[in-house]
């Protein structure tokens, strides 16, 4: 896939706001390479100390589920209430279950 000579690829940015939390998707940016992507992500998305760690990923490397398939793709989980603790009765007087 060729771009015009001054076009850079798209990267998605994930930021961990503080230790102990996951990285969350925060936004996107264009950069020529991985080093620039990381530095630009720091300048764009952590100007107010919003993060302690950044991941950048070329957008082309992300595989996404499709909204049209949303129903069927996630359907198996819909009728499996037994995966939830609330499905299981706890006898009166029993604690720590």
């Amino acid at each position, binding site marked *: 896939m060729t771009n015009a000579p*001054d076009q850079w690829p798209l990267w998605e940015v994930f930021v961990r706001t503080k230790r102990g939390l996951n990285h969350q998707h925060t*936004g996107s940016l*264009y950069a020529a*390479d991985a080093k620039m992507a990381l530095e630009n992500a720091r300048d764009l998305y952590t100007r107010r100390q919003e993060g302690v760690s950044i991941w950048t990923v070329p957008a082309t490397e992300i595989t996404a589920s499709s*909204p*049209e398939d949303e129903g069927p793709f996630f359907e198996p989980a819909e009728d499996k209430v037994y995966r939830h603790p609330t499905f299981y009765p706890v006898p009166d007087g029993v604690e720590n279950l």
Partner: protein
Amino acid sequence: MSNTPERSESAAETHSADLEQGFLAKIESETKVEPKDWMPDAYRKTLIRQIAQHAHSEVVGMQPEGNWITRAPTLHRKIGLLAKVQDECGHGLYLYSAAETLGTSREELVTALHEGRMKYSSIFNYPTLTWADIGAIGWLVDGAAIVNQISLCRTSYGPYARAMVRICKEESFHQRQGYGIMVTLAEGTADQRAMAQDALSRWWWPSLMMFGPHDSDSAHTQSSITWKIKRQSNDELRQRFVDITVPQADHLGLKLPDPDLRWNADRNHYDFGEIDWDEFWRVVKGGGPCHLQRMAKRKAAHENGRWVREAAAVYAHKQRTDQQVA
């Protein structure tokens, strides 16, 4: 499966009508629309236009304020202004990113701006004549933007709503920075006070114009409201801005240039005068004092930066190839 042209046409129409119904139901239930969802063509197009023009406004808006960076009166004011202008650039990026999720490219959007097929907010076509203008802009222009953007945090298109949330967080420093400048000037020497008053007198009406035409004169409003792109009308937002801002001007001891401005106890709002709509349309159509200059600067910045973008791309390619060989 249908095998005659008429039957496949009407099956397609029914399918299309189903999609429209499904889409409207989603909007009604306050479910956000996300990038890969089906959406009516008109919804997609109007959003690309609105979000991209919002993005263009942020970037062009760097010019009137950037104008005073080298002449800020103190180092403290200079670093504050630098940070604000830097934020506006970032806001442009968040908005371009949101627009691009709808199936357009940065190249297309920038070209549309440069060729005059897309606009940016007319407010940025006014000149910043004094340092006090920087105060007035932060207070009034960012203030008006905040009123609009808070409302847009509930817009139906997910990426646009999320960009608005992020922008709102950053924008409140902008307004305080601007108001802080106005306070310093209003409490200063007679000359400083006069400069602050002059800036307020010039920026007040253009700030009210930022909210657009009266709802009755606004062609796009109905579909934008039905699709929950727009959550409140132009006039509602403008009224809110006036109600918030008049007490702030009173605190500064400065006068607003509107002889019809007065508190209306029955309505529980401020009454205010009529905007000069001839001026409004003249400026929207490209007649603003700095329009040509803003566009020339924008195009030059883009063209002059081309060698940097190309060099970075070539360098990146070379590094990848060298690594593969090694």
